[in-house]
């Protein structure tokens, strides 16, 4: 580096400047904010824990993704149309129904996801009532499943916030991918491809449901 600088290279001068700045910062390290949550660690962890329920647990994620595909196939702004209803039903399901449901809600939610995915796969033109019904029931059952058996406000607020976020993100993201792709590439086969994807989700849910019924401990 020294040799290059002495040669007058502009690049080398910049490199030296960067190296000095980097060295200064590395000598005065502060907390790594990406991992240290000393001030709000618990709240953020609670939020992540809540979000992860809907995003990473297969029995939650697949039915929610199925609804997203259904809404994306239904119409360009399908998610926007049903979102108010979905939000309300998520709140009702999480706040009102969750304390009263038991373990049966999990296979019931998977069964609902199976119906929604099958509707998306088999119905070329979905009636509005199917989309609204699917969104409403998925909101109710999804929030109830995520909070199964927990009493009202039993969990920390940020866990609720995370669950609420995850339940919305999974559906909205799936719907956005489907509708954005259909908007960008107006080719006939793409719509069919999404219907095939919906049928595959349905097929996976059928098998998942069978596993759950026959050997519940396998999935725990």
């Amino acid at each position: 580096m020294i040799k290059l600088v002495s040669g007058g290279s502009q690049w080398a001068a910049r490199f030296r400047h960067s190296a000095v700045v980097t060295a200064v910062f590395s000598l005065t390290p502060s907390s790594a904010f990406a991992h240290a949550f000393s001030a709000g660690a618990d709240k953020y962890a609670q939020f992540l824990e809540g979000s992860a329920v809907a995003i990473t647990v297969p029995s939650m994620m697949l039915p929610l993704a199925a609804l997203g595909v259904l809404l994306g196939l239904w119409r360009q702004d399908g998610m926007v149309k049903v979102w108010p209803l979905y939000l309300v039903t998520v709140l009702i399901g999480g706040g009102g129904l969750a304390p009263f449901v038991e373990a049966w809600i999990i296979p019931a939610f998977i069964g609902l996801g199976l119906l929604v995915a099958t509707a998306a796969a088999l119905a070329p033109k979905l009636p509005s009532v199917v989309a609204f019904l699917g969104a409403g029931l998925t909101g109710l059952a999804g929030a109830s499943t995520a909070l199964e058996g927990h009493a009202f406000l039993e969990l920390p607020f940020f866990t609720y916030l995370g669950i609420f976020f995850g339940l919305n993100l999974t559906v909205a993201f799936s719907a956005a991918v489907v509708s954005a792709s259909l908007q960008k590439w107006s080719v006939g086969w793409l719509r069919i491809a999404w219907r095939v994807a919906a049928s595959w989700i349905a097929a996976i849910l059928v098998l998942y449901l069978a596993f759950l019924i026959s050997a519940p401990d396998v999935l725990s």
Partner: protein
Amino acid sequence: MTKRSVLVSSLTFAFALASSQVMAHTGEGITGGFLSGLTHPILGFDHVVAMVAVGLWGAFLGRPAIFILPIVFPLVMAFGGALGVMGVPLPAVEIGIALSGVVLGLLVLFAVKAPLWIAAVLVGAFAIFHGHAHGTELPNAANPFAYGIGFVIGTGFLHLVGIFIGEAVRLPKGQYIVRAAGAVIAAIGGAFLFGFA
């Protein structure tokens, strides 16, 4: 290139050639479950010919059957798989699987243009037998979720192969190739049906 890098490269190459079987994937966990599910439909030849035949016949029937049949088959097959997983008995599963090869092969051979609903019902009926066999033979160690994904993707892949081959019907004299493939599938199905395979 320095002597050191030549030495390192040579050693790496030698170790790569002398590598033994990878023992990490033992059929357990996410990866094992996925691979197990993926290979299950692909490794059974009687399953393979029937699923490829679905794609071939779909290509002969044209739109929308070419897309509808691959939607129907995995759905109904998963239902059959669920019956197998739950231990619900189904009579004459092996006969049904072999018969599916014969019937679907003959339909391709004679380029039968059935109405869509008949095609869907026929394909769906055979799919139950295939799914049941997979569900019954399911390894206990497999991760169920990963197994389900692999199982469905493996089946879909075989349909795509069939559709891809079936697209040859658009070529001059291409339909003879596809029909010949149908004859081969029917023969293989017959071999399984009568115990020659």
